[in-house]
């Protein structure tokens, strides 16, 4: 036939010729093997789909375990880094809060010093009766300076309302510590103002800028623009013992007052209250300098 003469037949033809059924033993065995191949192929595909770690080799499992553990190491390092930054941020917040607290404390202290906040604490009550109106501004100034020297931290002066008020009271007029000059020198200065003489008068907080001027008609003393008439009542917060000693030194405030016909009485208290406030106008020109912020 032409097949023997033409060895290079078309490929398809060759395949079909080879596939022609012949009942030779080799053909049967080949078919068997092909069937086996198909069977094994499908079986393997089946077992390969969805197989877990049960069929994996030991080395593969070790590899997987290695990669997992290195991955978990990475994640753990990441966790540590994140926690560090978290702690840093939290610490920053704490520092900010601490700084804020400190600033608030400083502000409170400065407010007491500037006279814009009420204060309480141990102190003395210096009551000056001056029936003859002989006490001059100098005497009160001296008393004030003595009190400051003795460590007074907050001072206010109360006087009965002057007859002629040329000026309006600029401060809160809460009369405080109207303690009657009782025999017991230590009395708790209650918040209830008793009706001491002149208790309904004006109260002035004494600050760094306070001034004393004699009233023109000798009716009293103008303190920070407020006319105060005797009797005067000076309340100072500080070490009561030091201040009372400073008042009573020979030739001191009390002696001077006595010499002028007035009478000064010092009463120490465990707690006095300075509630008069000093109005601080906002500075018109001065501004806080931005330089050199105080370190935290």
């Amino acid at each position, binding site marked *: 036939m032409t097949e023997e003469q033409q*060895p290079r037949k078309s*490929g*398809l033809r*060759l*395949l*079909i010729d*080879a*596939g*022609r*059924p012949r009942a*030779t033993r*080799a*053909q*049967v*065995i*080949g*078919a*068997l*093997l*092909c*069937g*086996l*191949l*198909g*069977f*094994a*192929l*499908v*079986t*393997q595909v*089946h*077992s*390969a789909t969805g197989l877990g770690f049960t*069929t994996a*080799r030991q*080395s*593969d499992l070790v590899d997987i375990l290695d990669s997992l553990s290195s991955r978990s190491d990475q994640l753990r390092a990441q966790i540590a880094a994140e926690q560090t930054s978290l702690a840093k941020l939290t610490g920053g917040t704490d520092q900010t809060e601490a700084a804020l607290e400190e600033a608030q404390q400083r502000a409170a202290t400065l407010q007491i010093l500037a006279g814009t906040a009420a204060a309480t604490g141990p102190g003395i009550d210096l009551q000056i009766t001056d029936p003859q109106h002989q006490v001059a501004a100098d005497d009160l100034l001296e008393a004030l300076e003595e009190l400051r020297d003795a460590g007074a931290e907050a001072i206010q002066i109360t006087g009965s309302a002057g007859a002629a008020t040329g000026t309006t009271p600029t401060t809160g007029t809460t009369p405080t510590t109207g303690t009657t000059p009782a025999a017991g020198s230590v009395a708790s200065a209650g918040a209830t103002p008793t009706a001491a003489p002149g208790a309904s008068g004006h109260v002035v907080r004494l600050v760094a800028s306070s001034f004393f001027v004699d009233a023109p008609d000798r009716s009293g003393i103008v303190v920070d623009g407020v006319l105060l008439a005797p009797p005067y009542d000076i309340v100072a917060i500080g070490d009561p013992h030091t201040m009372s000693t400073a008042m009573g030194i020979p030739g001191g405030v009390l002696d001077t007052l006595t010499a002028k016909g007035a009478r000064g009485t010092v009463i120490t208290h465990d707690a006095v209250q300075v509630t008069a406030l000093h109005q601080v106008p906002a500075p018109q020109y001065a501004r806080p300098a931005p330089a050199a912020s105080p370190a935290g």
Partner: protein
Amino acid sequence: MIAAIALAVGVVLGVILHPTVPVGLQPYLPIAVVAALDAVFGAIRAILDGIFDDKVFVVSFIANILVAALIVFLGDQLGVGSQLSTAVVVVLGIRIFSNAAAIRRHLFRA
């Protein structure tokens, strides 16, 4: 023709029976399948070259499978099983590709 029919029958049987591979055979079955595929492709090429021989096909088929399984077994014993199976698969894959290229040239003259 018979071979193709037998292949199809084997596939159908596998789908229907859905056998589970014995644990001892699990590492060898995929390699054996690839080796058998190589033998089949070689047989088709031999047919197209006109040098096909039934006996050669049967022997090469079985020998391929056995040698592949042996290599994998040896690799497992030596502790390089996965690497050797990869090597076997690569080599057989290359052979399958070259056989397929020869078949393609015969069939499509390209």
